[in-house]
């Protein structure tokens, strides 16, 4: 069934159509939330909140409007709220927890040094991926929010510049600029703090 039909039927109160819509979009919503909050449990909660919000506001969605950017904008906003709550919670946590976390300043749940060998995150990520995620969390904490979100959506999620511009409600040239600036900051951070990830490849033969 076409997504516009699903949206229309969901708005009219069709529970099955709404569940189908959730099924189709929840993975993308999860990943966006996960890139922002950095914790799969929190990201899952954000996904629930997103679809609750969607259910409530679906009637206000203009038919013919761009559903994806609208949904992902809700996701970003709720993920930011969740991240703020997590950070507030962390600030009240014990001093030992704070020390253990180091000076990374990234989202909760990321500690490169504390990753257990062979462990897999609930999102099914390998140790290597979790380590890269931890590095991203620590380096991207220095980015302005819009640059960070532009980089996440454009580079990590692989969305087009037009899609990202629609989600962030800005122009495409601003998105390109944000991505460029974010890339430069991350490159500098990697070279300075994680030079082992910047070594040139060893050519064979």
């Amino acid at each position, binding site marked *: 069934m076409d997504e516009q039909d699903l949206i229309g039927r969901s708005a009219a109160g069709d*529970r099955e159509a709404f*569940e189908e819509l*959730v099924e189709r979009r*929840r*993975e*993308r919503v*999860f*990943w966006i939330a996960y*890139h922002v909050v950095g914790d*799969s449990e929190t990201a*899952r909660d954000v*996904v*629930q909140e997103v*679809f*609750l919000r969607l*259910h*409530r506001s679906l009637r206000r969605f203009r038919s013919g409007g761009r559903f994806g950017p609208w949904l992902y904008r809700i996701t970003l906003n709720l993920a930011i709220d969740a991240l703020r709550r997590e950070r507030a919670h962390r600030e009240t946590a014990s001093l030992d927890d704070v020390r253990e976390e180091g000076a990374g300043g990234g989202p909760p749940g990321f500690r490169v040094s504390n990753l257990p060998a062979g462990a*897999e995150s*609930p*999102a*099914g*990520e390998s140790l*290597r*991926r979790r380590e*890269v*995620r931890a*590095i*991203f969390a620590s380096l991207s904490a220095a980015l302005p929010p819009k640059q960070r979100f532009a*980089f996440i959506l454009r*580079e*990590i*999620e*692989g969305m*087009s*510049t037009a899609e990202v511009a629609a989600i962030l409600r800005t122009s495409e040239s601003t998105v390109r600029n944000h991505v460029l600036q974010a*890339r430069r900051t*991350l*490159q500098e951070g*990697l*070279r300075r703090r994680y030079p082992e*990830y*910047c070594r*040139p*490849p060893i050519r064979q033969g």
Partner: protein
Amino acid sequence: MTPDTTGPFDCARARPWLGPAGVRTLDETTERQLRDHLASCPACREIAAADDPAVLFLELRSGPLSPGIWDGFAEELRARLTKRRTDWLAPLRYPALAYVTAPVVTLLVLGAALVAVRPGLVPWRRPGAARSPYVLPAGPASQARPAPRAEAASSGTLPLAGVRPPAAGPGPGSGDALEEVESPGARVYRFNVGGPGDETPIYFVVDDSINI
């Protein structure tokens, strides 16, 4: 450089672009194809990392989720949707009416603070607002009933409770009358003490906005 623009975007198509100048000359579609390839190809990513270490983060591109991640998700969502239907107070909670409730609450708090600091601003908190301003408290004289304002106004003088009424014409008791003096702001009353020729006027200023 004229790289191949046909066929799948594989390593052979990607590698000519991996270098300091390569990516900058690409149009958006090709650049996205290149990024998609880099996300899935560790070998090309490693080459690209020499110029742009941030390609490392392409490894974070969405992959398959662990199978159990959605266990119970639909049931939980259904339960929350059902609960929300019966939750009549939900619209009053954040963030539904936040744009209305936040300013209202702010105004209420500011109003309460203002009343606490300046009680005279509200009529029911004005001390003595219901009383005549020229009734002297305490003492046996306080038993005396103050003269009605209208009655006093007609004569132009207000009898001071516990004080003898003014005698007609000059005399020893003529200074004991409380007289309202015209004033643009507060109410001002005057009475004279002392004998004729040695009178000293004493003024009372009644200002409801002053709270001592």
